[in-house]
């Protein structure tokens, strides 16, 4: 018996085909992971399954109902958590829960006992989500992980037969991700079907069934362990299914010329030690430390990763490093120039690729590059030639006259990197450069980054993809504004291994090292235990 049966489903939005002749069955009583990059069609598929969108062609049956004509019969049986969790930010935790209970027509207070009475559903939910201490807090004031749990609790009210969660784990830390999966498994009964969409391939292994979609088509459907025993193998197999990725010499790195800007301060011994340096950086908002005692020293040609969940202080550190935010205490130096004293000069040494790529959507590729070239101070007479060169090196020739908002995400990312590199900076700052792009584009991107580092570019990168940490030479693990661990990926894993298993058998070799995600969780738990 299948909960969902889909045959030849097609859905278009104007010129864009979101779902392309897709057929899929979702088995009852299983947790199915729907995996794909941004724009692969995950959200459209979920919305179509529950009748929020109407397909152009094809047939769907959800719990035996046609979502197009029988939406009213279908909705009482499902629980759907949209992206952003669908919470009212100006209502408290309790108020959100009671509202959803009322909307679903279920009573939170069976047998006339008060809604907060013993054994009430409300109490059970609060206990389960560990939100009881925050029950009178406004939903908008909760952390990302807590919002996600509250959203899930609201969705679970009324014991739906079919649970659909749209990217519930985006942007939250690995611990919250793990809690969430556990919550879902505990709260549902064996009959319940769960459809869970995610952009993280490494999450695939926690599902009973994995459905990988790309460009509106299913490219894999089945037990995730059949495809790869580890997350890494799974990812490689998915890449093969998507057409494969061949690593080639990076043209971008090949054309890059390392030219440190001449300045008296960097002539000294310091340049040899640190190209980027954070010196007790601290940022305080009222009584709250967004960043505390952050110190590190990055050397020439090193890739340094800042890892941590949303809200851990990565972006704040980043903004202070490029002089966009003023540190409460401490300072940062780029190529030896103090960012608090001469921010403009320090900035002239770095290329900055901001989150969400910060391009001008209505300008063409060429116009964007031209603008950034002038913003970085490239002289007018050299500008056109430089822009043309960059367009060719970055493979943007076919898109040069297209508006940047019309580009697919992967190309936006490449254009954004081109804009950051147009003035050949010796230091490159990348803020969440791979968020939302598909796995092949990510591979390609990291190929360019590692090649640039070999040419001597110092790279500081933030990411919340744990597996990307492997590309970094050194990592700083960020949690609640503080660095909880700093070292090479290997060192951190060994440290975690020793915490998991204090007396390792001499036989245990490298193969038993924990994954980056496990490392992260172990180290966080360790820091909280202190």
């Amino acid at each position, binding site marked *: 018996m299948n909960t969902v049966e889909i045959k030849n489903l097609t859905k278009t939005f104007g010129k864009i085909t979101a779902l392309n002749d897709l057929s899929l069955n979702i088995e009852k009583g299983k947790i199915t992971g729907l995996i794909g990059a941004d724009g692969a069609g995950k959200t459209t598929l979920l*919305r179509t399954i*529950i*009748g*929020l*969108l*109407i397909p*152009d*062609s094809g047939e769907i049956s959800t719990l035996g109902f046609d979502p197009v004509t029988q*939406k*009213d019969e279908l*909705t*009482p049986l*499902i*629980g*759907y*958590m*949209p*992206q*952003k*969790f*669908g*919470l*009212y*930010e*100006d*209502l408290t935790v309790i*108020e959100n829960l*009671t*509202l*959803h209970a*009322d*909307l*679903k*027509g279920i009573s939170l207070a069976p047998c006339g006992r008060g809604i907060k009475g013993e054994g009430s559903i409300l109490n059970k939910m609060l206990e389960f989500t560990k939100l009881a201490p925050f029950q009178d807090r*406004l939903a908008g004031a909760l952390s990302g992980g807590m919002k996600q749990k509250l959203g899930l609790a*609201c969705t679970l009210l009324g014991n739906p037969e079919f649970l659909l969660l749209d990217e519930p784990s985006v942007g939250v830390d690995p611990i919250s991700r793990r809690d969430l999966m556990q919550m879902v498994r505990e709260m549902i009964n064996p009959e319940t079907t769960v459809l869970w969409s995610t952009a993280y391939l490494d999450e695939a292994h926690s599902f009973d069934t994995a459905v990988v979609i790309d460009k509106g088509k299913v490219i894999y459907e089945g037990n995730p362990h059949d495809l790869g025993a580890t997350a890494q193998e799974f990812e490689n197999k998915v890449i093969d299914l998507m057409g494969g990725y061949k690593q080639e010499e990076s043209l971008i790195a090949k054309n890059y010329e390392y030219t440190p800007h001449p300045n008296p301060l960097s002539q000294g011994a310091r340049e040899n030690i640190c190209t980027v340096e954070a010196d007790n950086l601290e940022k305080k908002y009222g009584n709250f430390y967004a960043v505390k005692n952050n110190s590190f020293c990055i050397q020439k040609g090193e890739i340094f990763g800042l890892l941590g969940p949303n809200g851990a202080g990565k972006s704040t550190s980043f903004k202070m490093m490029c002089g966009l935010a003023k540190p409460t205490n401490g300072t940062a130096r780029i190529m030896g120039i103090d960012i608090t004293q001469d921010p403009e000069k320090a900035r002239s040494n770095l290329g900055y690729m901001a989150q969400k790529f910060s391009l001008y959507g209505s300008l063409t590729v060429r116009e964007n590059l031209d603008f950034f070239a002038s913003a970085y101070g490239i002289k007018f007479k050299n500008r056109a030639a430089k822009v043309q060169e960059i367009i060719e090196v970055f493979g943007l020739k076919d898109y040069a006259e297209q508006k940047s908002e019309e580009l697919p995400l992967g190309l936006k990312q490449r254009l954004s990197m081109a804009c950051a590199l147009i003035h050949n900076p010796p230091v490159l700052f990348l803020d969440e450069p791979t968020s939302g792009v598909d796995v092949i584009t990510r591979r390609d991107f990291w190929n360019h980054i590692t090649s640039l580092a070999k040419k001597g570019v110092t790279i500081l990168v933030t990411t919340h993809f744990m597996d990307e940490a492997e590309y970094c030479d050194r990592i700083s693990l960020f949690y609640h504004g503080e660095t909880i661990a700093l070292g090479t990926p290997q060192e951190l894993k060994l440290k975690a291994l020793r915490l998991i298993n204090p007396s390792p058998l001499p036989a245990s070799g490298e193969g038993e090292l924990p994954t980056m995600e496990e490392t992260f969780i172990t180290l966080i738990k360790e820091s909280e235990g202190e």
Partner: protein
Amino acid sequence: MKILLALIKKEIKQILRDPSSIIIAFVLPFISIMIYMYGINLDSVKVTMGIKNDDPTPEVATLVKSFGHSKYVNSIYFDNIKDIETAIVRSKIKGAVIIPNDFSTKLAKGQNADLLVITDGSEVNTANYVQSYALAIANSWLATSKYAGSIKQPSINAEVRTWYNPDLNSHYFIVPGSIAITMTLIGILLTSLVVAREWERGTMEAMLATSVKTIHIVLGKYIPYFILGMLSLTFNIFLCIVIFQIPFRGNYLVLLLVSSLFLFTSLGIGLNVSSVLKNQFLASMVAMSVGFMPALMLSGLMFPINSMPVFFQHLTRILPPRYYVSFIESEFMAGTVPEIVIANAIYLTILGLILFAAVYKNTLMRLENAKAQHISKEKAVKS
């Protein structure tokens, strides 16, 4: 019913926690009434005008003097036409009267005498005042002068009595009329944001996946904002009558009833805008231009509807403020006139119901318009 109550409760909590809705409902009306009370004045004002007399006879000197005595005019005496020109350019005087040298001669012969009145056409309103004041002063002088007998008196003597507003105080109709503008603003601006906000924050999507029906969503928005609007209206009326002492001759119950109909139409416009656009910024911009501007320009409050171009006269018929302004002005100044009340109430009810139906139709129970999709589907099948 339980769902509806839950939605209303939720909406009221949101209103109470959002300072901006309280500001729009209570502070904004206060500011706008202050502006209409003290900032806008359509009444006659004291104007300064210049006088040049080329006819130096004792009789004409009394005419010049009577310009000086008028309570509407400040007069400045000039000898030179050039000086008058300079004074007008510098806005020292708003106009001038020049008495020609044959003025008394002509009058004495029983002929029509000429008087030159110069006005500043760049300020049309003031120019009208200058013209009418000058004529009025000259005529009243004539009636008492020694030439009075030799001039033919007009056989009809009009005695003017202004009903309802004997002082012709424009505040008495502008301030109540401004309630119409404020109510439009509240009804449209507040509601234009609320549905769009639910779409933007993704809460609408979550709600559509529950057993909520269209009628719940629609009434769940209408009712709380209706309550807020009525509170704001009561506050407005209190300001007008108690604080600003605008005379009220009508019936409070009738005032509240017809006002509630008007509020019903405003909410309808706002909710339509919000449901269709699904974007707070866009919705508030559109709400201002379809709600506020017509209420100000086309309601008959500032500019009489009869003097508008024919197209706009017809356009005002579909705009609720027209009916409300007409009602509220008469309710305040003339008292309850059944014909006016009933006619306007019927129009407002019809418009309100049409808008309600449109809101119902525009409230999607999916993320896209189902009908449009079916049509395109049918087309696809045919082709």
